[in-house]
Structure formats: structure tokens, C-alpha cells
């Protein structure tokens, strides 16, 4: 039984981190219609801000994460205002410039902090064993915090005024504009929120994995897979896609081999997309 439950738990834990990174990406896509390749670097910078505050300034880890989210919201607003807004309507240009931004941010981080891997000291107690299954407290906490953030986002989108405005813009920007929704302000808000979620994911992984200027590439690739699997622009889809990807990878690596992990994961996604091209919960 332990042989089945351990990979399942491993997969769920990994999946929730993917979801958190993917949510920010899908939020930005659904409202602004842009694919932001620099999203992984926002995740990386969120991790570094959390690291610097926790290790250099001895700020409480959870407070550091909240501050990192705030800092990335501000950076996100700046990026949206200065770089993406002038290019609205030119999706290809935005795609290319976001790639350039990703390279720029990565190299700035490399100059600032060097190439070495660093880690945030764990604020949690040691790993525990429950019924033969090993549970890392850091990962457990990451799952709980991710679940809280995902729930919070859902409630915000469903019940808040700004959230309803964001949903209206994602459905039909022209109609929303005619109803008096300030499109530019909503796009800025969604971009900032997307960056905050990426920063939160970055902060959460700090004590679990390592932080370096190069950690942004893999999560953003996984995030793309998740949002395509779940359906572009669908938040429930991103949640489902992230969990499926995490669990699939975990079982593949455990029972077949780590080198087949990505291959099997992508194969399953290919199958899903052949059968349902818009993704699991995407709109046709």
C-alpha cells in the first residue's frame, strides 16, 4: 500500500506547486490574451526576495513571502504598464518581448546573486512518517498554503467587484468596456495578481528545493503544459491539469523510471489534446 500512497502523495504535492505557477499564467492569458514567458522569472525573483528577507534580514519566513508577493505585484504593474500595454493588440510582439524579458531578468539575477544554488532554512519541523508514508512538513505546508491561495483567488473572482469585472473582461472585453469596466485597470490588476501567485509559488519552494537564477525555466514549461491540459483560460482546468500532471509524473518516475517521467507526462497530455483539443475544462 505504501508503494502506491507514497507516489500519490508525492504527486499531489508537486501538482499543487504546478497549479500555483500555472494559475498566474492562465489568469493573465484569460484576461489579457497574452502568453508571458517571463512568468518563470517572476517566480524566481519571488523566491529570491523571500530568501533575502529571511536569510539576510531575518524576517519571519511567512511575512517574507507576503512581502515578496507585494514586491512582485509592483514589478508586475511596472512591466504591464511600460512593456506590455503599449503593445496591446500585437500578440506576436508581446510573445517575443516576454522572451527577451525572461532572458534579461535571468541575467540580471545572475549578476546580482551569482550562479550558486542557495536554500531558505526550513521554518518547519522535520519530516514525519504516517502509516509508512513520509511527509515533508515543508511540502505539506506548501500544499495547504497553495490551497488557501487557490481558494482565495476563486472567491475573489466569484464574489468581489473586481473579480466579476475580471471575469467579464475575460468573456468579452468589448462588452465589458461598454458596461463601464475600466479595461486597462483590470488588466493591470490581473497581471499584478498573476505575478503575486508566481511569487508565492517561488517563496513556497524556497525551503523545499534550491533557488538560483535558473529555476524559472522548468516551472513555466510545466505551467504551460498544465494550462493547455486544463484548458487555456480555465482556472478550474489549471487546478485539475496541475494535479494530473504532478501525479502522472510521480507514478511514471516511481514505477517506470525518472528518465521517462517527462515523456509519459507529455504522452498523456498529447492523448488528452487529441481527444479534446480545447483541454479538459477549456471552452470549445
Amino acid at each position, binding site marked *: 500500500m505504501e508503494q502506491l500512497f507514497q507516489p500519490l502523495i*508525492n504527486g499531489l*504535492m508537486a501538482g499543487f506547486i504546478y497549479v500555483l505557477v500555472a494559475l498566474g499564467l492562465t489568469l493573465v492569458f484569460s484576461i489579457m490574451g497574452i502568453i508571458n514567458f517571463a512568468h518563470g522569472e517572476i517566480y524566481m525573483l519571488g523566491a529570491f526576495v523571500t530568501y533575502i528577507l529571511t536569510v539576510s534580514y531575518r524576517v519571519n519566513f511567512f511575512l517574507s513571502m507576503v512581502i515578496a508577493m507585494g514586491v512582485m505585484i509592483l514589478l508586475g504593474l511596472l512591466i504591464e504598464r511600460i512593456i506590455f500595454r503599449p503593445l496591446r493588440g500585437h500578440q506576436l510582439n508581446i510573445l517575443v518581448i516576454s522572451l527577451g524579458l525572461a532572458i534579461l531578468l535571468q541575467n540580471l539575477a545572475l549578476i546580482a546573486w551569482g*550562479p550558486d*544554488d542557495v536554500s531558505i532554512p526550513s521554518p518547519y519541523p522535520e519530516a514525519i512518517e504516517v502509516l509508512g508514508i513520509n511527509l515533508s512538513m515543508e511540502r505539506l505546508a506548501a500544499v495547504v498554503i497553495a490551497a488557501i491561495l487557490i481558494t482565495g483567488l476563486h472567491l475573489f473572482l466569484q464574489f468581489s467587484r473586481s473579480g466579476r469585472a475580471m471575469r467579464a473582461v475575460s468573456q468579452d472585453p468589448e462588452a465589458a468596456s461598454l458596461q463601464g469596466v475600466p479595461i486597462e485597470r483590470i488588466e493591470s490588476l490581473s497581471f499584478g495578481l498573476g505575478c503575486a501567485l508566481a511569487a508565492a509559488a517561488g517563496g513556497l519552494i524556497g525551503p523545499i528545493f*534550491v533557488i538560483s537564477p535558473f529555476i524559472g525555466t*522548468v516551472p513555466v514549461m510545466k505551467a504551460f503544459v498544465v494550462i493547455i491540459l486544463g484548458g487555456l483560460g480555465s482556472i478550474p482546468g489549471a487546478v485539475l491539469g496541475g494535479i494530473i500532471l504532478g501525479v502522472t509524473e510521480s507514478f511514471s518516475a516511481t514505477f517506470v523510471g*525518472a528518465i521517462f517521467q517527462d515523456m509519459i507526462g507529455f504522452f498523456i497530455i498529447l492523448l488528452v489534446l487529441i481527444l479534446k483539443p480545447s483541454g479538459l475544462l477549456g471552452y470549445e
Partner: protein
Amino acid sequence: MKDRSSSKAKGFVAIVLTSLLIFGLYALAAAETFKIGIIGPLSGPASVWGQQIVRGAEMASEEINAKGGFPVGNEKYTIKLIPYDDKYKGPEGLTAANKLVFDDKVKVILGSISSASILAFQVVTEPNKVLVLCNSFSHQVLDTKKPYTFRILMTSLEKAPLEVGWVAKNKPNIKNAVTWAPNDVSGWDVTKHYLKAFKDNNINVLLSEYYERGTRDFYPILTRIKAKNPDLLYSCGSPPGDVGLMVKQAREMGIKCMIMGHAGSVEDPEKFVGIAGKKNAEDYTYGTDFNFESKEPKAVQFIEKYVKKYSRPCYGYVDPCFYDATMAYAYAAHKAGSLDADKVQEMLKRIPEYEGVMGAFKFSGKEDYGTDQQRLTTCFIAQIKDGKQVILSQVR
């Protein structure tokens, strides 16, 4: 009037001629510039090693230049370093070599540490007789048909028998092991050497796991490994960050066996402990090529200068390795009395009397590679104890 004008003209000519003579003499007296190329990963996850190549070469070249350069025959040469980033990849290594050989016209290249890069750029350096002093683990880098490439650090071929031999001698209770490595040429090559060493020492390998570089979550692999219940978990060629993470996650998963790693698995013990956690890192055992607590005068002097220049501790072995390579090249060229590649490469093989920071600059390898172009260096077994590196023994 005429006499005065004539005198003035003569005076003017005399001044110009004297100035030209002084300038010419000065030009003759000034040292020539000798360019040394560097190819290594200066960005990306492996840049920690690439930066070490640059630092080691910088320290050596500054030391040489401070003495007015290195003498070759009647000339003196000051060193100018020209680094290029290969990103640990073949195509970029080839591009860098093309620039260094054809544009910058270098006669010697330090690096790379990437097998893919070196194998790619040897097609440029070998036919153009450019000496390459490199460090990569692929067997194919050295060959009788590649007389201008020298490897200046021991590979897993040389180190695996020493490290595993130490295990067999000092940990007789270890009967079986699991190896894990990155899923690429370097990982496969290194694992092959360790598998042979384990076999030669009668330690049964239960499983050899490989993972894609960039993986951060080793829980799935460790779940498989835990099921095998090995006596020893051995890292074969993974970078320090990966090894630190693996050690941490292994202990979280409840894997209690001995964990050991190849030389290079720990570059900076403090950072390693920071990633793995002090309790998890306790007793992690590994090979290392350089004892940074050495009392040898050259090593002490090197470390003092390094700390002063870079404001960081010197834990890695790549820095002193390429320091030695730069100094040894200059010494070999001086002894050869020439910068001709054939003469210098012949002299490099004949200067075992040259003592570097990491010991004698002695080459061997005819038995394994068909040619004596593999440097033999020191090798130690170290362990993390109470968050710090402790040298347990010298195995070579």
C-alpha cells in the same frame, strides 16, 4: 639667415630621430602580449565551474604579469585572457573555439569542463595545433589522434577505484549500493566507471538511476531507491546543488543508509550544508581533489591570495587546477624556449618537477587512453561533520 634656418632644421630632425629611437627601444623592451583563450560555462547552472576556470586563470596571469610576463627565449610575454561562454553545450563550444582560433589567434585554450563542448571544438583546435588544457570526464576527449589536448584533472576513471576502494576497505559492512546520475553523456560515462569500481570491490549494485538535469524533486526516484533498501547511495557526477537536494530529500524520505558522492559533489561545504540541512548533511562522505586546509606552502599562499582577491573562501578544486594549468603552460613554454605547440606539448609531458598548488604537474594515461595526456593529481576522502568539511584520508 640661411645658416640659422639650416641649424634649426638639423635640430628638428635630430629631435625626431631621437624620439623615434627612444620609442623603438621602448617598444622592443616592452613585453609582447600572449593571448590565452578560455572556454567554459559562464552562464547557466554549470557556471559555478566556469567561473572557477576564469578565477584560476586570472590569479595565475596576474601573478605572471606582475613579474613582467613569462620569458620565452629572448622575449617576455604578458598574458591576456579571452573568455567565451559555451553554456556547457557543443555548438556554443565550437563557436567559441572558432572565434579564439581564427579571430583571436590564440595558441592555447583553458577549458572547457563540458565533454560535449570539448568534443565539438577539438575539430578546430587539433588541426590548427592549439593546445587545450581541459577538464571533462568523457573518455573520448583524450586520444592518440588528439596530441594537443591535455586533461588537467583526474576523471572518474581514475578516481572511482580510489573512492570505492576506500569504501571497501573502511566500510566492510557495505555489501550493496545504488547509483544515481544525470541522464546525459557525462552521467553515463561517470556511472560506468563507478559500476566497474563497485564490481571490482565486490559491492553489488542494485539499481542505477538517472534523472534529467533541472530536476529538483527527487522524491519519485528516492521512492524507488528506498524500496531497494541499499547499504550505500552513491552520486555519480551530479552538480553540488542536486546532491545537496538529494541528500536532504533522502533523509526526509527516511533513507538512513550511507550516502556518498564523487569528487565535485561538494564545492562549498557551507552552501552544501545550507541546502541539505545540517542534520541531513551529517556524515555525507565524498571525494575531493583539493584540501583547502592543506599546510603545503604553495597551497596556503594560493588560498590566502584567493580569499584576498575574491572575498570568498576557496573550497572548489577547479580554481587551483586552472591556476596550475596556466602556470605550468608558461613554465613549459619557457623551458621549451618556444611557443610552438609541438615543442610546448612535448615539454608539458616532461615537467613533473613542476610543483603546482595541487601537486606535481605529471601526466600519465597511456594504458587507458593510449597517450600520456592525463594529469595525475591528489585525491582525498572528506566528510561533513557538524556542518564542516573534515578530511578523512588521502587516497592518492
